[in-house]
């Protein structure tokens, strides 16, 4: 990654709405060809960040640099960044073809050229049959593809996608994700996309930035976010279950994932509070003596209140809510 070209760089980017700081001094480099996900709970500034990158919102301070050029003061139409809005924002007065062709028409491209490019993009996304349809008569999934196609016909420096899959049902979402990855591999372009669903980031992204209250808590591969979350907040946020914590000393915590613990033997104990089925694996949600909630893998549901012994194969140490090290138990 190091030797790769920086595609976009954010320097000390700050954005406020009134007194409310929505983006708090953000520094970030994204490299050419990355599929970068921005992940975070609702209202943390994910959409605002994309809007500042594309130029719809002005930053209060800091700068946005694309391909080495400072674009902070350029309007959106001069930035050469394509964006797909969460609402798809299709033009209601045009058909599918008109929507996809729109950026090219604005660039005053030759008519035949436009037709060729639209057809190519439509074929890539599998929407060739609906080019003549009105946008009121196509499904949510098709709308998303049209919005994507409209972004793809251009050759922008960068693609920004704001929750591109949020309106799709779970099954379609899965294939759409795979298609996005394929698209990135085919085009070799750089994509940044926003989501609040971590399952959308786990296997297709190069890196994930976890945004919390206008700041990146951690920027890393999903695997590292899961295994070595840099703060207890990230540890809590990432994973199907929050990381389990038990006290080590006054300001130190031990954190572990369910599969890092072996239940049934060991010196530590906890009382079963509920059984929880996730996928086809049963989990025991337990409470330790000092009041911590922890999650263990248990092969069968047990009676509530049962005392369970467990030991750890692997755990992380956090001091003042910050990651210190990972310990593997022999």
């Amino acid at each position, binding site marked *: 990654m190091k030797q790769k070209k920086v595609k976009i760089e954010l320097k000390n980017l700050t954005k406020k709405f009134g007194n409310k700081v929505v983006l708090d001094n953000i520094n970030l480099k994204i490299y050419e060809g990355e599929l970068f996900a921005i992940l975070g709970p609702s209202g943390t500034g994910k959409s605002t960040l994309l*809007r500042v990158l*594309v*130029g*719809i919102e002005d930053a209060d301070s800091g700068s946005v640099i694309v391909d080495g050029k400072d674009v902070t003061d350029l*309007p*959106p*139409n001069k930035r050469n*960044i*394509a*964006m797909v*809005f*969460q*609402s798809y*924002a299709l*033009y*209601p*007065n045009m058909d599918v073809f008109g929507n996809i062709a*729109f*950026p090219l028409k*604005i*660039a005053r491209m030759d008519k035949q050229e436009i037709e060729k490019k639209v057809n190519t993009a439509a074929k890539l996304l599998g929407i060739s049959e609906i080019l003549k349809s009105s946008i009121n008569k196509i499904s949510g999934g098709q709308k998303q593809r049209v919005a994507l196609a*409209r972004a793809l016909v*251009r050759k922008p420096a960068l693609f920004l996608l704001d929750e591109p899959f949020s309106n799709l049902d779970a099954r379609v979402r899965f294939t759409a994700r795979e298609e996005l990855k394929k698209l990135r591999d085919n085009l070799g372009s750089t994509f940044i996309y926003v989501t609040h669903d971590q399952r959308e980031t786990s296997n297709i992204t190069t890196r994930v930035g976890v945004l919390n209250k206008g700041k990146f808590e951690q920027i890393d591969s999903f695997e590292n976010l899961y295994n070595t979350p840099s703060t207890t907040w990230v540890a809590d946020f990432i994973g199907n279950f929050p990381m389990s914590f038990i006290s080590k000393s006054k300001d130190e915590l031990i954190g572990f994932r369910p599969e890092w613990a072996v239940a049934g033997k060991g010196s530590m104990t906890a009382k079963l509070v509920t059984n929880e089925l996730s996928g086809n694996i049963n989990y025991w949600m337990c409470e330790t003596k000092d009041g911590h909630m922890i999650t263990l893998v248990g092969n069968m549901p047990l009676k509530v209140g049962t005392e369970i012994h467990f030991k750890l194969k692997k755990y992380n140490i956090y001091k003042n809510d910050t990651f210190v090290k990972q310990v593997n138990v022999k």
Partner: protein
Amino acid sequence: MKRKTRNKYLLYVVASVVAIIFIYPLYILFLVSFSPTRYTLDELFPSQLLSHITLANFISALTQYNFVAPMFKSLEVAFLVGALTLAVAIPAAYGLSKMNKRLANLIVVFLFMANLVPALVIAIPISAEFIKAGLFDSVIALALAQSLFTMPLATFIILGAFRAIPKDIENQARVDGMGVLRTLYTLLTPLAKAGIAVAFLLSWLTSWDEFTFAVILSPLKPTLPVIVYINITEGSLVQAAAFAAVISIPVIVLTVILQKYIKGVYLSGGLTG
């Protein structure tokens, strides 16, 4: 299902009643202007049906008075008012749609202040200015004066139409490469065409039957409402009716032409959001 169709019929009944109430005076107007006077004005209880058709009223009205010049003057002024109003109201409404909503609404209320002042109060001082500028009796002067009253409502209606367009559609156009003005005139204006058509129609109509400014700013080369007024005061009621019928024809034509754009935004456009 049954209930739905019943409601539908009820709607038709109500709509018909309302339509009849509005159309009846117009019908009487046409009846009087197309009938010989002895079947209408000279009778104590005139028949409600057209029994004898005559064009005599029109012929005497249109030959006795110079009708053509006022007609063209009225048309020119009305279209100019429509155009001037849109030229100002579209960018104004766009600007307001970008502002904080409360502040924008407050400004719109202030815009209507112009309509609170009686036309006479404004007409006299500005006519003095127009005389100085050599614009007295001109089309442009009258159109400018009348636009004063049509712009607030037009701005209000178009503002509603702009607000109804999702913000991200405009943002998308900017991202797709359009500048601000191009976005406004090639994307937002067509999307707001219903509201804009209504604003144009109302401005046009306001000018078409406007009297106070017309009589003060343009007395020597009068518009149609002024001619009708002169007719009525001179006592020829039948000819006035014929004139009034002629006046209402362009109104009907324009409304029919613009109807396809309107589709119910007449009121809702200005009030949504």
